[in-house]
């Protein structure tokens, strides 16, 4: 009989071994598959939601930065006005708006630029909103100068008149006149002609800029035009016309609302402190919190211990005490700003302290070399014996401590907004870095606990959810309570496929936001 005949027989016999499982097994399997798929889909949806919110928020801020200059400008709707003289109307670029200019002027194929030139202006400037209108002068034929705009006091008659001459019967809130376009020499020796069309009509609460009739600029003398060009003649005008306002009261209210919105959009700074309890859990999301961790191993036991003795097939017969929850706290410098009526975006920088506790035996001061999955070889000067393996050596409680620094981004959804009570639902992600730890790992051959910093995944990503309940709301600050729970999406150890441990923190914190 060959040497391995015994194994062959055995293998054959064992392959025939079939046992019928109880019906409960399938029920449980089916239940868990459904649950797991549901959980995965929830996580996916959550990530998608977070991504969309993040994208939307980013987009909002980018857009906001582009347009946020003045309240008035938000109300501005550009219109077209042209002053045609010949075939080619050259658009004048409106410096305040994104859309191309509304006013065009023909300058005999000469592009008009909108650069302010106060030297070319004459008369007193008119202040409208945040813009200043400076009456410009156009040099007509010869040396005669005429003011392009004059300012008069607003009254109904004048307003009526102005409206008549206006191309649009809209109220003008903002007006921008740029000057400085220099006439260049007219090589065609043709007279420059400006059609009859109103150039500008401006009105604010206090001031109305009266438009003059378009001036016919004619000359038979190209030399004069040349001369004109050499002087600072103004031919380009940029006009901004706003959409109609119902009345001045509405406008004021609107302005106030806009001001208030602008004020609300400001960042609110503050601090947060979150004392709580931290733990490390294995396997399913939050399984350790709800009593499903009965089979959980010591989270940091290394699966591959190199044997020191002869009779150690794998994990040695040593009782490993699972870590128990420890104290944790988080201090953060936070900034928050509303992105909509019900949604706030927040960001912060945090310091977190996480701890778990483990029962260990006495400390042994000796040099030992340990091989594990994380470091090819690590030499320790001392280690702690496993308490259960040496019960007579006096147990003690060792605290695994982790110090983390990280950045967070959060979205806060205002669920309830009442006078006496308000409640927000906060969701955040935090990327953290373990800056230091004294946590112990378990080694089977050592039958004890030792330290190996290489074993830990330094960068940790946390997902947190919680509620914010303002308890003190003053004009200058808001103090809120926030119960929160966070889960480490990344495993604590680098290679922890089977020993998949994650941080979990929960607690009730205080948040102080300065308005």
């Amino acid at each position: 009989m060959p040497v391995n005949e015994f194994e062959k027989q055995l293998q054959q016999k064992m392959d025939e071994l079939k046992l019928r499982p109880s019906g409960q097994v399938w029920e449980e399997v089916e239940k868990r598959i459904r649950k797991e798929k549901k959980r995965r889909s929830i996580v996916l949806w959550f990530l998608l939601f977070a991504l969309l919110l993040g994208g939307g928020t980013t987009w909002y801020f980018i857009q906001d930065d582009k347009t946020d200059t003045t309240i008035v400008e938000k109300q501005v709707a550009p219109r077209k006005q042209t002053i045609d003289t010949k075939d080619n109307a050259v658009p004048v670029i409106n410096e305040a708006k994104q859309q191309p200019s509304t006013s065009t002027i023909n300058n005999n194929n000469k592009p008009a630029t909108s650069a302010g030139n106060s030297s070319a202006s004459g008369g007193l400037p008119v202040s409208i909103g945040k813009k200043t209108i400076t009456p410009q002068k156009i040099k007509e034929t010869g040396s005669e100068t005429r003011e392009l705009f004059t300012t008069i006091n607003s009254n109904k008659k004048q307003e009526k008149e102005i409206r008549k001459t206006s191309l649009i019967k809209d109220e003008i809130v903002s007006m921008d006149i740029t000057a400085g376009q220099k006439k260049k020499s007219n090589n065609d020796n043709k007279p420059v002609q400006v059609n009859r069309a109103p150039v500008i009509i401006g009105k604010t609460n206090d001031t109305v800029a009266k438009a003059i009739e378009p001036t016919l600029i004619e000359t038979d003398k190209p030399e004069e035009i040349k001369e004109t060009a050499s002087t600072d003649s103004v031919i380009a005008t940029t006009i901004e016309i706003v959409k109609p306002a119902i009345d001045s009261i509405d406008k004021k209210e609107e302005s106030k609302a806009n001001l208030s919105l602008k004020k609300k959009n400001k960042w609110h700074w503050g601090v947060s402190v979150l004392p709580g309890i931290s733990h490390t859990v294995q396997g399913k999301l939050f399984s350790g919190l709800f009593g499903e961790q009965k089979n959980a191993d010591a989270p940091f036991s290394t699966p591959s211990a190199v044997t020191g003795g002869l009779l150690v097939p794998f994990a040695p017969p040593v009782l490993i005490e699972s870590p128990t929850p420890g104290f944790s706290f988080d201090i953060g410098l936070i900034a928050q700003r509303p992105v909509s009526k019900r949604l706030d975006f927040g960001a912060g920088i945090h310091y977190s302290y996480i701890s778990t506790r483990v029962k260990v035996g006495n400390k042994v001061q000796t040099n030992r070399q340990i091989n594990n999955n994380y470091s090819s070889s690590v030499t320790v000067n001392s280690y702690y014996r496993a308490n259960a393996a040496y019960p007579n050596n006096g147990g003690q409680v060792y605290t695994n401590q982790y110090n983390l620094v990280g950045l967070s981004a959060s979205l806060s959804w205002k669920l309830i907004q009442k006078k006496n009570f308000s409640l927000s639902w906060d969701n955040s992600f935090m990327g953290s870095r373990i800056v230091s730890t004294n946590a112990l790992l378990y080694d089977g051959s050592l039958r004890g606990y030792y330290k190996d910093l290489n074993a830990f995944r330094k960068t940790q990503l946390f997902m947190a959810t919680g509620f914010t309940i303002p308890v003190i709301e003053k004009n200058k600050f808001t103090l809120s309570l926030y119960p929160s729970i966070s889960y480490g999406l990344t495993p604590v150890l680098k290679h922890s496929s089977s020993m998949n441990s994650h941080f979990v923190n929960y607690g009730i914190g205080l948040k102080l936001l300065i308005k």
Partner: protein
Amino acid sequence: MDDRQLVKDCLKGKPEAQRQLYEQYAKTMLGICYRYTKSLKDAEDVLQEGFVKVFLGLKQYKFEGELGGWIRRIMVNTALNFLKRNRKYRDEMFFTEQPLHPVADDNPIINLQTKDLADIIRQLPNGYQTIFNLHAVEGYSHVEIGEMLGISDGTSRSQYARARALLISWLEDISVAYKKKNYAGK
């Protein structure tokens, strides 16, 4: 329905296909789990865990090799993880430096029923039982076992030799007792 179609239907989330796959392999897989554990309940726990992994990781099966072999590997790994995690198995590992019993025949003929043989294997200490199952039944080399369990291949060899010797001595005892019983009966 062939395995390929069965897997595809399972991936689509069809409950009847999932049930069929389970029914097709559950008995054999429970036999495997039974060999690695000390009780039927634990074996069923491993089976349950293993099948959850099978269904959730079915996407990873690339139709290379038999589906049964793929599921079997998952079951063995699940069983090993179960033993590592479960405190009872760690606590009950009793390794003693007892000398090896002299073994008359190194390759005895096994006259036992499969279930009885499995029960005898399950009487081995946990460490011996695991290594014996991995090497003798699953066919893993000692180097592979060393990698799986985080031990050296030499340790695996020595553990296996001890397990084998112990098992053969038990089988011989049973055989002698059986012969005596038969002889007395005559």
